[in-house]
């Protein structure tokens, strides 16, 4: 996704803020919606949110940095989340994570240099029976092995191809 233009940040944030009143309890839901739309929480968005809720911008930052789900920097085009829950761990989740790190040449928490892939760890997606689990762009892959990494990447690229093919011009 990369860096997002200021106008887009402004528009998307304004869009979300129209859905919520200025009550303090809306802070986390607003952060979630903005993060869903932009992929991360840019500084300008947080400032707008603070204004809307009439709270100090530091409080917005404080909440945004507390939760795992909120990113402060742009994500990769695809997000790969490797489950590090107990069941996945005892079935070799760490080896899976390391295999992804090697394959993508990026440390967990980072984004590849070309911006294609972001690699994250996630604490249990509740599919423990299918461990070890990898979630790629919201598709859950069960019973993965270090050797299935390449296949999942190919699969992602193909799906992307399909989507582009469908919409004609792509993006």
């Amino acid at each position, binding site marked *: 996704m990369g860096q997002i233009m200021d106008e887009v940040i402004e528009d998307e944030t304004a869009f979300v803020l129209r859905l919520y009143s200025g009550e303090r309890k809306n802070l986390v839901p607003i952060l979630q919606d903005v993060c869903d739309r932009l992929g991360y929480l840019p*500084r300008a968005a*947080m400032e707008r949110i603070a204004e809307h809720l009439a709270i*100090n*911008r*530091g*409080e*917005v*930052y*404080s909440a945004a*940095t*507390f939760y795992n789900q909120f990113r402060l920097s742009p994500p990769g085009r695809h997000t790969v989340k490797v489950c590090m829950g107990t069941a996945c761990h005892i079935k070799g989740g760490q080896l899976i994570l390391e295999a992804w790190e090697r394959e993508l040449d990026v440390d967990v928490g980072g984004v590849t240099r070309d911006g294609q892939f972001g690699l994250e760890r996630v604490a249990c997606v509740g599919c423990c029976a299918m461990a070890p689990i990898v979630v790629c762009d919201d598709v859950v892959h069960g019973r993965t092995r270090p050797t299935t990494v390449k296949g999942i990447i190919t699969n992602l690229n193909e799906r992307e191809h399909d989507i582009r093919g469908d919409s004609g011009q792509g993006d």
Partner: protein
Amino acid sequence: MSKVTLTIDGIQIEAQKGEKVLWAALEGGIYIPSLCAVRGLEPPFAACRLCFVEIEGRGIVTSCTETVADGMVVYTNTPRVKRLRRTAFELLLSHHDTDCSSCPGHGNCELQRIASRLGLKLRQNRFRPVPISYPIDSSHPLITYDPNRCILCGKCVWVCNERGSGVLNFAFRGIDTVVTTFFGLPLADSGCNSCLECAAVCPVGAIALKRDVRPPRS
């Protein structure tokens, strides 16, 4: 308001109903260490875990959260109390820049005071130091902020939001928790109104007045 009578370390103490054991003890001249407690703040922050006492029938509790009751019997120095507060104290020091000589709080530091009152060592070696190396913020004309000396008692955050301009807040979490400004902006650019209350409440040398700055009249 009515009063209650409790016994702390064998001494009878009268306290206001609703008061916390910590303040009743301190008022009665009995020392209990604490870093994070603010009198009257509800709910109490209860984060530093130094103010442990043992109460008959209740066991080990933090005195800053425990409300006094008539006939309550409190001990501030049982082996269990000593052990817990020593552990908490040493844990705090394991994530703290303990080079006291270069600290602006040197000589006026609650950690030093607690160490000398309780006979604890400032240089502990039970726990391995947890690396901490934030940049020091000296952008502000009147104060410096050294996060490496911060013990996360939360007093500055509370006072800044209560009486100041609300620029200080906790950010991140767990071992990475830090008191900071919006996106870590230098204090000088943060919107701070220089009330200097934070420096006044900081129990250590993390937020300190720059040399030659006179403390505010409060």
